[in-house]
């Protein structure tokens, strides 16, 4: 219910689009890049998560497709968040190269063993009166289109919100794409 959120983040969105229009169309980088070493996590954008899960390592460096973990995005309105089993599927073998990585991966293993899934802080949220069918957007824009709204997650050590997710932002894109902007498309 506040007005603080809109302006600054909208600026970020514009910057991202302008800086890398091609990447904005593609969820996956064209070539693998090595994720940088983070010394000061306090300066990272976005909410601090219970496990320092690095999208830049998984999606960027290791080039794991978004849909490996967010499996239902192309068939359902909800993209789904990976179960601990999915994390542990790899991390029972991959235990990390540095002490920092090892410490975080250990949390995953503990979550699995202790049956206590991590409580992620939600980054992208819509109000309760909005329906956003993910699958239709993936159908129209392709499985590489995640970045259109979520930004270059494969470069984010910690995920933050780049788009306002406000109605004007939605409608702008609908107008540009020449698709319906009927109210009851999203509001019911």
């Amino acid at each position, binding site marked *: 219910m506040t007005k603080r959120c809109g302006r600054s983040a909208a600026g970020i969105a514009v910057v991202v689009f302008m800086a890398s229009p091609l990447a904005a169309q593609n969820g996956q980088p064209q070539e693998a890049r090595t994720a940088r070493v983070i010394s000061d996590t306090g300066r990272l954008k976005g909410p601090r998560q219970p496990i320092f899960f690095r999208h830049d390592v998984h999606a960027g460096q290791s080039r794991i497709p978004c849909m490996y973990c967010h499996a239902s995005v192309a068939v359902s*309105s909800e993209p789904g968040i990976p179960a*601990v089993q999915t994390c542990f599927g790899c991390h029972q073998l991959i235990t990390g190269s540095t002490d920092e990585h090892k410490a975080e991966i250990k949390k995953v293993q503990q979550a699995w063993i202790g*049956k206590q*899934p991590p409580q992620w802080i939600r980054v992208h*949220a819509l109000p*309760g009166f909005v329906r956003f069918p993910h699958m239709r957007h993936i159908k129209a824009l392709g499985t590489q289109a995640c970045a259109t709204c979520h930004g270059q997650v494969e470069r984010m050590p910690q995920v933050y919100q780049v788009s306002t*997710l406000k109605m004007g932002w939605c409608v702008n894109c609908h107008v540009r794409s020449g698709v319906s*902007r009927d109210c009851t498309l999203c509001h*019911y």
Partner: protein
Amino acid sequence: MGEPMERRRFLKVLGVTGGGAALLSGCGIGPEPTEKLIPYLIPPEDQVPGTPTYYATTCRECPAGCGLHAKVREGRVVKLEGNPESPINHGRLCPRGQAGLQGLYNPDRVAGPLERTGDGQWKPIAWDDAIGRVAAKVKGARGKGIVFVTGHESGAFGELVDEWMRQVGGRHVIYEPFAFEALREGNRLAFGTSAVPWYDFANARYLVSFGADFLDTWVSPVGYQNGFARAHGFQAGRDASMAKFVFVGPRLSLTGMNADEWIAAAPGTEGLLALAMASVIVRERLAPVPSDAARLASLLSRHAPAQVASAVGIEPSVIARLAREFAASKGGLAVAGGIAAQYPNGAAIVAAANILNYVAGTVGKTVKFGPNDSLGGAGAGSFQQMADLVSDMEAGKVAVLLVHGANPAHSLPGAFSQAIAKVGFKVGFSPYLDETAAAADLILPDLHPLEQWNDARPRAGLFALLQPVMQPVFPDARHTGDVLLRASGRDQTFQEYLQGRWRELHRRHGGGKSFEQFWSEALQHGGVYGEAPLQPVRLASGVAQLTATPPALAGGPGETVLTVFPSIGLYDGRGANKPWLQELPDPVSKITWHAWVEIHPATAARWGLTNGDFLLLKSPYGTVKAPVWITPGVRPDVLAAATGQGHTAYGRYAKDRSGNAFELLSSAPNGYGGRTFSVAVSVVKTGEHRRLATAEGDPRELGAHNVEVLPLGRARQLKSGERAFEEHEAPAYAERALEDWAAAQHEKASLGNYAGEHPRWGLAIDLATCTGCSACVTACYAENNIATVGEELVVRRRVMSWMRVERYYTGGEHGEPVGAVVTPMLCQQCGNAPCEPVCPVFAAYHTADGLNGQVYNRCVGTRYCSNNCPYKVRYFNWYNFAEQGGEWESWPAPLDMLLNPDVTVREKGVMEKCTFCVQRIRGAQNRARLEDRTVRDGEIVPACAQACPSEAIVFGDLHDRRSRVSELAQDPRGYHVLAGLNTKPAITYLAKVVHDG
């Protein structure tokens, strides 16, 4: 399935974020500070977030055994729908079945086992201790009387109880307050079998019901309504359509309202009428009478129309006419039950109706013995058994009483409640603290039927399965089957026990499949649906001795006959803890949330009563106070009252809500071991008055032509392309304005979103098959997160029902016969909608696909739209019904778990309305888009159309010329409500058709 606790917490979060609750947050960026996403440990294979999964199971809200599809989103059930594969209900579901969901998520469920302490308080107890205590008490009571009372159980659970009782030397008493004893005994008297046959309504060509309210609660109301609609509906091309339906009974029930002719026979004389009809058929040789009917000769000659007419209260010529019509139809069906089966001579009335069927040759055609209902046969319980139990309890012959799935303390208030005090140890298995559980020493809460394994055999040849469709809402409740197996020292779960039973079925019906495959297919389809062969029946030898003489019901002077009938929504009282059913207007009286007494206008005038005046009813067995509701639908010498209310426990929605009609009834069984539901009462005006919590506008239509009626002869003459109802859409002086409007519309249709081809969604409602049962109303509540507002707000006319069923009485004046017509009223999605132009903020607007859209987040609550709506189908949120802990809270936890995540929960100050289930339209469009196709006709089914047991509602695209709805919109019977206002509604009503004369 992972670890249950984690999973549920995760689901709660997903529910909130997925749109279950409208946190009207204005901020589009940044997380809500409290929002967390908690993943599964192991993802369930059959769940996709954001997409519903359907599980087949079986409804246990009444003994009918309808098949269910439980819609599960993110691991919790959000809606119950009929299973289209079930031969019982054909994919349809009544209000009670749908409200099973509110039993599952009931906020007053008992969370875990409780024991009563010395000072009468409840104290939690561990399961192991509790089961240990039960086992020890049962062991110690061997020979001193162990009784297990259950409701109607036709499957494995009942067998387990039988087994256990045999093992410990106890007995199993099956108790249903409405147990159809008269039906069984009547069939035994006439045919020598106590089976309850299957009545083939769909193939009947003439129907006579002697009190049997088969559209209300009788035997299998959903299936029978479906059949009735097929037989009684009007189909232009089919000669056999429009089977005439005659209802005989003292009260115009929902079933009676749908009759073409109502014979308000004197109470208890229904059997005389049936025998008189049979005597006419035999005397006039109207049908090829079976040879063994000769033994009926003296019985029938004693019941010629002239001899019984005065007792029944109709002309002999009417009886002869009915008999001739019945026989001439060559497909008659007479059913007896309901009120007629609740007199002391109820069994004789049923037997008389059987004789009528027999001489008319319909037994084996429309009355099918063989596929018998599980309510019949020797194993079904009777009131006699319950009465015997009560006297045993009184005599101290019962040491341990276990009660599951029954609430005798409510339905037998005096006798049982006194007797239970003399039982040493009482165990209640109810998931709710009902009256019987409240009198127990130990409560071992059972799982809700939606959470448990079980099966049911609703009809011979049909084996229906129940499976848990979600994790238990209260994890510390436990399946009573598991508890019994533990208490009897068997190392087995109930699921294994059930599968053991099904291995037997597999041997007979497996068809070469492995058991695993057989089992999983049965789970998928909701059961195994076979057909039982027909069994011929012959007249019983003693049938000629039948006496159908009516009993003397009214006693001394000043006494009136009161008939107590089962409530359509609350049934025997088990529905009273579900707010959907409490707020569902009774299909006949339209009263919600409280009890009432029905009284004829002439009697009310004589006694000086107006609607809402309280009467104190005194019978020899008890007294009840209730407000009167004046209706032409009851005989002047009869009062009528519904069961269901008057609970002294059973949770916040049921407790302390008016009187309990069961209190007026005798607790002694009658001659056929059933209960007598008619009683002589004396009546005292208390002088008190209340406003009835009614949803009725006016009892009569007052010439508005909301419900158009066509005589059958006229309807048959109508040719395709013709219109029976000429619609003057506008007076001449308005034509210019109309032309301007049309031009403006044309111009607007080329702009923006509106350019191009779009569907126009429309509905067709066939009033020839709509019975007014109100299944659509509850379906709408369930699908669209409609708040229940409570008694006070209903009185203040603030009920939120987007879909209402209007009932108007007809006739009754100037000697015309009394009848009633019904019509569902919902948003008409006008093409030229009065609500839209008056909205100052464009919250009410026209969508490109022809809906009157309502944008909740844009609405500021001026209510102009509602003021301008001629149909009064817009509803305003006067309070915040979703506020947790608020004064008007509609979904106290965990009831909020049933909210449909696809529909916004509206806030205070917002107008809401029907949009043809736009979430289902968008859902179907999304699916179609994924599959690169267009939406198919019939793919989108709004909740009301889906539930409708009559299949009276059809939805589709009016612009698609091949769609069913556009075909129906062109039907000669079609008309639009208030068409003269030039609103151009998208709903076409098809006129009701009535028999000529």
